């Protein structure tokens, strides 16, 4: 997969998303001359604690895309068990491909070259609605989510409010 092919593939996805927007997020480039760095705006999914929020995130694609996954980072502050405090998203489909020795994650749960910006964002949106506390990236958020849910809710509500202020 050459860099030219990777950029063609990403351009195709951008054109497709502009033509047929997907509910729940909007996508564009951080810098219109760099197809490998995207900016997306995720709308907090309805009927979740994140409802009403507007969360901005960046996707950084490697030159080997789609053989390797992009990195995803929330720019808007967000409190969630599977998102590090610095915004880095930690979900298995964004993990480097292959079978690890320990059998911790099966190859089929990791990155696959059929993932697109759309499928990645759909996974991230469903992660917002349904955190996975088996391997939390934000241990404090995971602990609160399990043990002191009212405090967790309060922190998420604060992020949602802040995101609305930043967006208006």
């Amino acid at each position, binding site marked *: *997969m*050459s860099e*030219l*092919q990777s950029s*063609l*593939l990403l351009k*195709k996805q951008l054109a497709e998303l502009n033509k047929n927007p997907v509910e729940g997020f909007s996508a564009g480039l951080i810098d219109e001359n760099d197809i490998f760095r995207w900016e997306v705006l995720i709308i907090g999914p309805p009927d979740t604690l994140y409802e009403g929020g507007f969360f901005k995130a960046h996707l950084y694609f490697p030159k*080997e895309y*789609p*053989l*390797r996954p992009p990195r995803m980072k929330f720019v808007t502050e967000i409190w969630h068990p599977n998102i590090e405090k610095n915004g880095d998203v930690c979900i298995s489909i964004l*993990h*480097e*491909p*292959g*079978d*690890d*020795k320990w059998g911790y994650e099966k*190859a*089929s749960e*990791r990155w*696959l*070259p*059929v993932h697109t910006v759309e499928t990645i964002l759909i996974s991230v949106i469903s992660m917002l609605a349904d955190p996975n506390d088996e391997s939390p990236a934000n241990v404090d958020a995971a602990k609160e989510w399990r043990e002191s849910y009212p405090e967790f809710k309060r922190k998420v509500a604060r992020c949602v409010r802040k995101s609305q202020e930043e967006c208006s």
Partner: protein
Amino acid sequence: MGNCLKINNSDDISLLQGGEISNTQDFAPDQNDPAPIYSELLQPIFFPSPSVRRPVSHLTEEEQVKIAKRIGLIQHLPIGTYDGSKKSRECVICMIDFCVDEAVRYLPCMHIYHVHCIDDWLMRSLTCPSCMEPVDAALLTSYETT
């Protein structure tokens, strides 16, 4: 899209090449290495497990065996030419439509891909990108247990 653009694929892993055949893929030697050896710059890069990329000379013996078996397995997967079948019109890795008579590789699950697209992928993960079927579960378990 019917786009039959032939792209010169400079970072093709060149499965069948041995270590000493020149390959333009660059590799920055580890800082800890005492003396960078020129031949290392010309070696293909391999991916023995997730997040690990190494040139041939840096592979452990176990990784060499694993990769040799993997290359052998990939070479045994049949190559055919695209017959214009409507069932699979595009290669889901690069999202480019197949051209009639273009070389495609068949996986055991009968999903097809451009040879260079799927070979690069299988060197990283022996999983069909479309159905997530392990490409050869039997072979995989036999070398994982040895």
